[in-house]
Each structure stands twice: as C-alpha cells, then as structure tokens.
C-alpha cells in the first residue's frame, strides 16, 4: 500500500507520529535534529565557560570537573555530527526535497522511511539515557578510541560507554534505511521528462552523500559491534593483551569518519547551489562539472582516512601515501568552490536571508578548506595534530555545513514547509548574530593551536607554557563570542515558531524559482501535487535571453 492510497481519515497518531508522509517524517527529523542541536549547544556552552573561567560554577550548569568536561566534549561532538548535522542535512532535507523536487507523491518505501525515523528516535533516547546512568555519560572523545572506550576500569563510565556506542550504532542503522530510500526514489520516481541532468543539484548531492554513507558505514558498524562485544563480553578485538589491536578501531572508524565529512558537506553544498542560483537569478555555472567534482570528491574521500592517524603509530611510510591523496582531494573541492564563485558572475544578486547564509557558507567554508591543507601535510600535522588548530579547522568546515547552510535551507524552503513566510528582519538579525561571532570564536583558536594548545584539556593551569594571561584572554574572547552566538539563536526560534502560525501566507512560488517543489501548494498536502508535474528543462534556466520572465519553471510547457 503506497502513501497515496490513504484516503480515509487518519487519527492523530497515524498522521503525526506514525506518519509515512515524507514531509511529516522530514519535519520530525528536522525538529528532532534542532532539539539535539540545542542540547549540543548547551554542552559546548558549559565546557567553553569552564575553559574561559576554569573552576567557577557555570550558570545553568554548575561545576565542570575533569570527568564531566570529558563527557561534555564527547557528547557535544557526537551529538553535533550524528544527531544534528546528519538528521537535518540528509534526513530532513532529503526527505522533504527529494519527492517534491522530482515531482512525485512520496518516497518509494514510505514505511521504511517511517522505520528509519523510529530507529533514529530510539537512538536519541538511548543517547540521552546515557547521561543518567550511574557514573555518568561516556567521556572517551567522539572517536572513542579503545582500550579507553572498551575497558570500564580505564574509562570509568561502564554504562555510559555501552549506551553511547549502542546509540551510535542505532543511528547508523537509521540512516542506512533512509539512504536506500533516497537512492531508489531519485532513480525511479522522477517526473515524466526529467533526465539525469535535469535533477536539481541538491538532490544529486544528497543522493551521492547517501551512496558515500552506505559504502563507508559497513566497516564502522562492524567495528561498533566489535566494540560492544569488547565492552560486554570482553572479547578483546581491540585489546593488545588478548591479541587484539587498538589501532584497528581507528582504521574502521576513520574509514567511515572521513567520507562522513563529505556526507554532510555535499547536501550543504547542494542547498547553497540552489539558493545561490535563485537569488542571483543565474544558471548554475557548469552543472556537469559540479556533479563530477562531487563524484570525484566522494571517490577520493575513501582513500584519505589515515590522515587522521599520522601520529597514531601507523607505519610512517603509509603517511606519505595519505598525504598525497589528502592533498589531491583539494582539487575537486577547490574546483567546486570556483564554480560556485563563477555562478555569481553576471548575476543579479538579492541579499535575502537565505542568500546571505548561502554566501556566508562560501566565504567561511573557504577558511575551513584552506586550513585543511596544513593538516593534510604530514610534516606539519606532527605539530598541529590534536591541537586547537584542528578544532578551529573542522569547525570552520562543520559550522558552515551544519549551521550556516542548514539555515540557508530552512529559510529558503520555509514557505514550502509551513505555508507561511518568515520575518525577514529577524532573519537578518539572526544571520549577522550567527556569522560574526562564529569568526571571533574560532580565529583565536587557530592562534592557540599554533601555540601548541591541545584539545580535550579541561584546565590549562597545569601547563605553564599555556597558562599565560594572553592566552587566557583569547579563550575568554572565544567563549564570550560563543555565548553571543547562542543568544542570537533566540531570534531564529522566535521567528520559526511565530511565523509557522502567524506569518503572512506564502504563495506557491514566492522566490520565482524553477524547481518542481514550487509547483505544489504551500504547504503541500499528503500526495504533494494536484496533478503530477511533467518536466521539460533543467532546473537552473534563469534569465534566459529572449524571455520576459527571468525564470522558466521546469514544468512549463514549451510553446
């Protein structure tokens, strides 16, 4: 029974909790993700305050001791990647956009979709439960290197560690189910006339990301099961005393962990591409090149994982190979960014809130991209590995991805998701209040990293070389900026919930965009379209010469 056969009245539970409608599932993922993002934000607030004002009681939290600091950083990292970036960027946007943008009524496997969210929700519950078990939440870093993570007498969080790895495993399973759905739907359910090269780039990117995810996650799931066995049955896969090897986990983890970066990067870049084209009224520059660079990045991302392990005790000759592959990956990524910049050329740019976020992604992600070169260069990584330089680098990639591009997407599709317009003024306040403090958080951290400050250290007073007042001032600047950035999320929350109910009603196509989701009513009903659209052209035919309108919807019949 497919989704479109649900004619009869559904109960509340059927409609909103156990729904198989891709849009409801998307919103479930979106709000669960934002909720987890808020928790992750709270955790970072607590431990950043500890770094700026060590040993003082933190308002709304209390004292951070060395053990709770570890739990805070561990769960901040885990939540932000697995429970915020992934559900929002892939699951929420993927679920919402794929059927709408290819002009079909629902996912190919709606029930699989529902199961995916339910497993995901279960993983959320398990993770949150890990905060409340005896001895507290897991504190062995989000990479969970054994033997620390597998041995309770070392980690001192016997239950927290088990629940943490269980939650991660469940989350991965949820996304495997979702990924199958995305790929199948995009390949099989496209509107009549929509050729491969007529697919909006954001969908391509979400689906390539799903392929990357599914191809890389196998080893990690195997590793996670081995870790659970080590923790509960003391099997010793990762225990050298029993013939195991702790480095094995690192390979399994990073074989997934590095493609994972691109799993979240690609949807973000897709969102940015679509938003930029609409608000620059420009055709995407070199559509095929963009697509091929994404595929090249994806393929290369499977051959770079050991650059996370240069100094981990791997054969030093191996590092040379991974230096080469790591630097090679800069080529397609740089090319993609060049193409994005070229898209702006000759445009007619409106600086609305989604566009501002999309442009900020471009500007900020560049910093994240170029600083990666320092870390990919093995010689420099000997020094920079696990310093705050790494922290600043990957936050300059992840914040543009998971926060800035996500906001671009939320604001851009807000009218379609909720049928109402957001408040532009609040949106702009939110934008500047997010992007400016973001830079003042992480630029000081680059400097501290260069000064040799390592990550995951709860109090630098034990290191005379790092305890100087000047460095402490930088830490305070970073923390204060973070608090400002968090406070500036309040306009977003107000905007979101106010506009959902009281915003001005949105038309079908408020942005004059080409893609098919704007053909559906706002918000689209169950089943999406009154009449399934047909597709006659590519998604980015803006400002075509000889046309009066500067856009040309994909479903408009050629004269």
């Amino acid at each position: 029974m497919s989704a479109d056969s649900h004619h009869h009245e559904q109960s509340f539970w059927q409609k909103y909790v156990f729904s198989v409608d891709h849009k409801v599932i998307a919103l479930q993922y979106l709000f669960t993700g934002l909720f987890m993002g808020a928790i992750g934000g709270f955790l970072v607030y607590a431990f950043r305050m500890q770094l700026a004002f060590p040993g003082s009681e933190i308002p709304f939290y209390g004292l951070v001791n060395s053990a709770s600091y570890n739990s805070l950083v561990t769960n901040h990292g885990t939540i932000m990647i697995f429970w915020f970036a992934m559900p929002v960027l892939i699951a929420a946007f993927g679920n919402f956009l794929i059927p709408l943008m290819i002009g079909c009524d629902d996912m190919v496997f709606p029930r699989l979709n529902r199961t995916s969210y339910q497993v995901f929700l279960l993983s959320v519950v398990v993770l949150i439960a890990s905060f409340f078990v005896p001895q507290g939440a897991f504190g062995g870093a989000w990479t969970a290197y054994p033997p620390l993570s597998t041995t309770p007498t070392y980690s001192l969080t016997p239950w927290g560690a088990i629940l943490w790895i269980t939650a991660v495993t469940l989350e991965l399973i949820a996304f495997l189910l979702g990924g199958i759905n995305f790929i199948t739907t995009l390949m099989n359910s496209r509107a009549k006339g929509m050729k491969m090269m007529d697919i909006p780039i954001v969908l391509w990117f979400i689906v390539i990301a799903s392929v990357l995810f599914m191809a890389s996650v196998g080893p990690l799931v195997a590793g996670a099961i081995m870790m659970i066995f080590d923790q509960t049955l003391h099997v010793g896969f990762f225990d050298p005393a029993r013939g195991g090897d702790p480095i094995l986990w690192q390979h399994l983890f990073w074989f997934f962990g590095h493609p994972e970066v691109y799993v979240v990067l690609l949807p973000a870049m897709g969102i940015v591409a679509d938003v930029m084209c609409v608000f620059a009224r420009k055709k995407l520059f070199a559509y095929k090149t963009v697509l091929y660079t994404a595929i090249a990045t994806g393929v290369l991302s499977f051959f770079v994982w050991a650059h996370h392990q240069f100094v981990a005790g791997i054969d030093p000759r191996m590092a040379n190979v991974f230096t080469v592959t790591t630097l090679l990956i800069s080529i397609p990524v740089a090319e993609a960014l060049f193409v994005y910049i070229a898209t702006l050329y000759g445009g007619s740019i409106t600086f609305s809130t989604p566009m501002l976020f999309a442009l900020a992604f471009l500007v900020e992600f560049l910093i994240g991209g170029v600083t990666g070169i320092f870390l990919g260069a093995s010689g420099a990584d000997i020094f920079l590995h696990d310093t705050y330089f790494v922290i600043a680098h990957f936050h300059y990639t992840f914040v543009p991805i998971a926060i800035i591009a996500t906001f671009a997407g939320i604001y851009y599709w807000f009218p379609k998701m909720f049928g109402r317009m957001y408040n532009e003024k609040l949106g702009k306040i939110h934008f500047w209040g997010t992007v400016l403090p973001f830079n003042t958080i992480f630029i000081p951290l680059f400097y501290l990293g260069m000064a040799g400050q390592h990550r995951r250290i709860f109090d630098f007073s034990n290191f005379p070389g790092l305890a100087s007042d000047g460095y402490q001032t930088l830490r305070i600047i970073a923390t204060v900026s973070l608090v400002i950035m968090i406070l500036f999320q309040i306009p977003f929350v107000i905007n979101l919930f106010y506009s959902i109910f009281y915003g001005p009603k949105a038309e079908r196509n408020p942005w004059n965009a080409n893609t098919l989701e704007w053909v559906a009513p706002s918000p689209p009903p169950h089943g999406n379209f009154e009449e399934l659209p047909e597709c006659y052209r590519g998604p980015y035919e803006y400002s075509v010469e000889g046309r009066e309108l500067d856009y040309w919807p994909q479903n408009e019949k050629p004269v």
Partner: protein
Amino acid sequence: MGIIEQASSYAAQIDNLILIVGAFVMFWFVLAQGIIFYFLFRYRKKRQPKAEYITGEKHSETKFIHWAHWGVIACDLVIIFFAIKAWYHVKQELPTADTTIKIVGQQWAWEFTHPGPDNILDTEDDIVTIDELHIEVGKVHHYKLSSKDVLHDFSVPVFRLKQDAVPGRVITGWFKPIKTGEFDIQCAEMCGIGHGIMAAKLYINSKEDHAKWLESPNLKYTLYQEPKEEVEQ
C-alpha cells in the same frame, strides 16, 4: 612562526613547512575571497537588475576554472614535496643515538627511564622519574615509547613532536634538543578523566648541568627491588 620557541633540531623545518603552506593558501584564499566580494558588490541587484545567461559549458567560459585548477595542482605538488620531506626527516629517519630514554604513559602520568651515568638502559643506575624528563642539549635522543593501559600521546610542542603511545607496542623515535630550558610535555590523546592534568615537565640542561643531575638526581625515593626468591603480583 615565533609563537612558541623552537627547541628541537627539526622544529624550524616544520615551522617553515607551515609557512610555505601558509603562503600558498593565503594566495588562493585572498584571491577567492577578493573575487567573491567583488562579485557581490558588482553584481548586486541595484547595479545589475537583469542577470546574464551563462551556462559555463563553453570553453571560453570554463578556461578560468581550468587555470585555477592547474594552479591548485601545482601548489599541491610543492606542498606534498615539502610535507613529505619534513615527515621523512622526523618520522622515518633515525639518526644514530647519543642516548636512549624509555617513556611509558599510564593513566595519568608519564614515567621516564633515563639511562643514568652509564648511558645504558635497563641497568642498576637507571634513573626513573614520574612527570620529569631531564635531557642534555645538543645530543640525539632516541625514545622508546609505550603505554601501560590506554592510548596516550607524547607531545612536546616546543619540539613540534607528537607520537601516540600504544599499549602492546614500543615505538621508537628521535629528537635533538637545541635549546636549554624548562618546557611542557602534554598528553595529546584522550586517556580518561585525568587527561587534562597529564602534564609533565621537560628539563633541557647544558652538558655540565646534566652531568650534575646525573650525579645527584635529587630523588627522594629509591626503587624497590623484588627479592629473587619471593614472587608476588
């Protein structure tokens, strides 16, 4: 660099590598940001009410991308060369040792075994310390790094040196201090609830001072030797 001191023979090489990467990266970064901000200014709606239709598929349009593309490849090659050169020198070469020390990480302290006056490890006059490493300036030191429990990472920022300690393995590496002074040794791999306090001190002494320290290391304790007939765990 100038942010922190260069106390090992290869610190300058690593810093120079960072500077080389920095120079290339700066070039591309400033170029790209400059173009973005110029475009945003030049093609704002007020100034450009109607956009142009450019597909980006013609050769005349894509050539700018391709030039940039080859430029990136050229920069990558230079960076790869210098990166591997520095890596090879620090991690793959092993100059002949003047002295060898044993470093063992445990939760949450570093145990250093100095070879003592006879300069040979595993003899009676070894000097074992917790969280204090005393070395002589200008000598090539080999280290034998291992761990008693979990992963640790022996990190000396002024040396620009970092190496994980892995239980069940002994990892050999080297450094040659070139400057006297007292410096931090950190643990750079999450090792449990005391990771943030796993701080040791590095004392790089002149030849005379080091000889004096070897003579009387000023330790309050002596190591306990298990009597041969009595075996306990």
